[in-house]
């Protein structure tokens, strides 16, 4: 089964723990990258705009908090994924069921990482324009904040799908 396909030859030899570890690392690493990217986009605009309009500083820290939440989503999912790792006996490492569990954790990590990356970027860009328009006209702050809330929902989508997919990561039992 699967001898005719050449991708399978390579994939079957890679341990599922490799895939799981890469998935967990991507989940937290790329999420934090997205959060940091968003924070520096927002922060630099905020500090620059606050020179002429110092009143905006305390309100616009909310944008920074929205970006930070993206990193926290990554941490939570990475912790959940690493509790899904189980040790199986050596004869079972390349069994089809454990291969599937490894792939599930890998895909779950990729989903969470990259969804949080784009969410952090999006919230950062909108946060920077929120700070700049708030400096001009303080009635605009709440209206642009609504757009930012739409942006931060994208990170939540990634977390939801990541957790649903990690429920598929069932390793073979140690019985046999």
């Amino acid at each position, binding site marked *: 089964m699967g001898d005719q396909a050449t991708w399978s030859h390579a994939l079957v030899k890679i341990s599922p723990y490799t895939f799981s570890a890469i998935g967990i690392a991507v989940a937290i690493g790329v999420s934090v990258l997205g959060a940091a990217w968003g924070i520096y986009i927002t922060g630099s605009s905020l500090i620059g705009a606050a020179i002429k309009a110092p009143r905006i500083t305390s309100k616009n820290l909310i944008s920074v908090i929205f970006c930070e939440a993206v990193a926290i989503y990554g941490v939570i999912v990475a912790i959940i994924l690493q509790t899904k790792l189980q040790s199986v006996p050596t004869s079972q490492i390349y069994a089809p069921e454990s291969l599937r569990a490894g792939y599930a954790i890998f895909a779950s990590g990729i*989903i969470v990482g990259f969804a949080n990356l*784009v969410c952090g970027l*999006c919230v950062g860009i909108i946060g920077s324009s929120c700070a700049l328009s708030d400096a001009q*006209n303080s009635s605009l702050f709440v209206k642009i904040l609504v757009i930012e809330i739409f*942006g931060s929902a994208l990170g939540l989508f990634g977390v939801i799908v990541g957790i649903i*997919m990690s429920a*598929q990561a069932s390793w073979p039992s140690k019985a046999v």
Partner: protein
Amino acid sequence: MSSTFSGDETAPFFGFLGAAAALVFSCMGAAYGTAKSGVGVASMGVMRPELVMKSIVPVVMAGVLGIYGLIIAVIISTGINPKAKSYYLFDGYAHLSSGLACGLAGLSAGMAIGIVGDAGVRYGLLPVLSLFLLIWLVAMVDTVIGLLQVKCSLLLCCKEIHLHSNLKVIKIAGPLQQRLLSQFTKHLLEFNIFFSYCFRMNCVEPEPQ
């Protein structure tokens, strides 16, 4: 152990990657649309604060793309169950193509909504009539591409292959649906091009400051 698990061993890799592609690329499109339109709204809102709440339309349309990606990703990942139903490489590749179709269509739709929304809220809301055209245009882009996204990926998901008698039986979910879908989207694309031309005529260049 292996008697309860039928199908190819590495097929779940492609299946899960399909679900990942569906969500990740749709989220990229939604993020681009939200960010680009949001910057346009903020820039326009400095001059005309009363029009800001009306210009949230492209942002909402871009957010919907993320939801499409979420739905397809969940459908795909719950369809990978080698214990209940045998999961061959065919099913893995079908799920991969379904997820890529959904995701990349969402990415392109999001980029389109971003660029159109940015230009539309900056220039198009000055004459009152253009608000209607803005909404129509964004809704057209979104429905056309969103429809293609969801329908194509569902069609690809639902392909089943029965390996009983010499690989003869392939069941595709609705060949009639495919024909109707292609006609419908052809008409929608024609309307879309027509209205975008009308909209372009109606755009007002901002006065140089």
